[in-house]
């Protein structure tokens, strides 16, 4: 699997033509996205270049301490980003932080323990980045749905509490739907992979000149790993976050009074 190609800065610059095309479409159809497209192109350039240097440094140092430091930073930024998409969930940061940390640690630990990847920077950094990124999206979607569902099902949840059900029992249908919505996107895209779209890793490997069989196998490993991490992240995030809607006396918190956090 050790293929390597050289990509020149000129080649990257040439693809800016397509960014210009996107901006032109936006301008022509008055989609008002030209500015955002410009910012996106610039930010991706700066962020990826910076992380490229960081990864180069970590690969050269090849110490696990640096790898874990980078993954920890990713987990914190992932939790902060996901929190902004789960505004209706009180104190969503901590459930998200724990969810991303547990999902990252357990899936990486497992693939290393199963002998799929070596515990070196070269494998842990890219796989960890994908795992945490997908876990972030899944837990953000799950908590976003949880917040909406808790607001919509308030009457039903309180009526169930009024029967003497615990908060966990009263929120169970809501938590189940939130968990499902966090996982469904990846499950669906995994079903159609290879038919409707080629996933990124496989495309990258094919472009880099790898044998298609190797490219497919690595892609399968990553897809299966992501399924596991997404499930863990959505499970941990929803299991921790629903509690924030209730008091210790199994009462539904007044959200309107406490919402602006």
């Amino acid at each position, binding site marked *: 699997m050790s293929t390597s190609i050289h990509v020149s800065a000129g080649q990257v610059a040439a693809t800016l033509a397509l960014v210009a095309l996107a901006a032109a479409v936006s301008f022509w159809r008055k989609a008002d996205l030209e500015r955002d497209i410009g910012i996106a192109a610039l930010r991706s350039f700066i962020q990826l270049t910076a992380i490229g240097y960081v990864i180069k440094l970590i690969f050269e140092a090849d110490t696990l301490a640096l790898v874990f430091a980078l993954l920890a930073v990713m987990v914190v930024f992932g939790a902060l980003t996901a929190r902004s998409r789960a505004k209706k969930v009180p104190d969503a940061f901590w459930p998200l932080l724990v969810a991303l940390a547990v999902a990252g640690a357990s899936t990486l630990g497992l693939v290393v323990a199963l002998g799929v990847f070596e515990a070196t920077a070269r494998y842990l950094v890219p796989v960890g980045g994908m795992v945490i990124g997908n876990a972030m999206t899944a837990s953000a979607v799950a908590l976003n749905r949880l917040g909406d569902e808790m607001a919509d099902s308030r*009457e*039903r949840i*309180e*009526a*169930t*509490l*009024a*029967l*003497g*059900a*615990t908060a966990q*029992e009263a929120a169970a*249908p809501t938590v189940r739907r939130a968990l499902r919505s966090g996982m469904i996107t990846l499950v669906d895209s995994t079903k159609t992979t290879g038919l409707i779209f080629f996933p990124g890793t496989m495309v990258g490997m094919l472009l880099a000149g790898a044998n298609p069989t190797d490219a497919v196998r690595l892609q399968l490993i990553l897809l299966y790993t992501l399924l596991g991490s997404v499930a863990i992240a959505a499970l941990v995030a929803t299991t921790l976050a629903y509690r924030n809607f209730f008091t210790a*006396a*199994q*009462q*539904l918190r*007044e959200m*309107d*009074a406490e919402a602006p956090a």
Partner: protein
Amino acid sequence: MLFELRDVSLVRGGRRVLDSVGADIPEGATAVVGPSGAGKSTLLRLLNRLADPDSGSISYRGRPLDSYDPLALRRRVALVPQLPALLEGTVGSNLAYAAQLAGKRSDAGRCLRLAGLDPGFAGRDVAKLSVGERQRAMLGRALAQEPEVLLLDEPTSALDHEARDAIEATLADLRRELEISIVLVSHDPEQARRLGEWVVRMEDGRVAECGPLAEVLA
């Protein structure tokens, strides 16, 4: 005394919803009346600890309410909310769930009859019921727990006159057959006259009057 409230206050969203409320609620049928926004529903929710007051004390049958486990209390003091909010599934599965929580054997047919519904409703999907039928299914579900007290929040506000009269007749029958205590919130003084023996009249988060029906709503 069934419930005793002393100096009970509650602030929600910066508004004083209950302001130094003091009231005695005896065994029997009590109507809590007053205009909307007077704090009636909030008061009712305090009685089975769906919420706790910020200050003041409430006791149930002589014992402080906060010394009861909230879950155990709610199975003895059942609250039927204003808007019907059943769980997905059939009427029967809702009744069975409530009975199981209270550790009771559910006689769904009897509970439905008491709530004024034909026992055949047990197999009906809750999504296909009318509002009146849902309200009755909520009442039947509460009865499946064999509670000591029924707290009813505007049980007929969403119903037409005919359905309202039928629910009121059902509640009167329940009082006779089960000798259960009822605390009923209503914005309608006429309903309080028909169903209450004791009346708590609220205004602006305060108790304006509290006493026997004949004295308060003379």
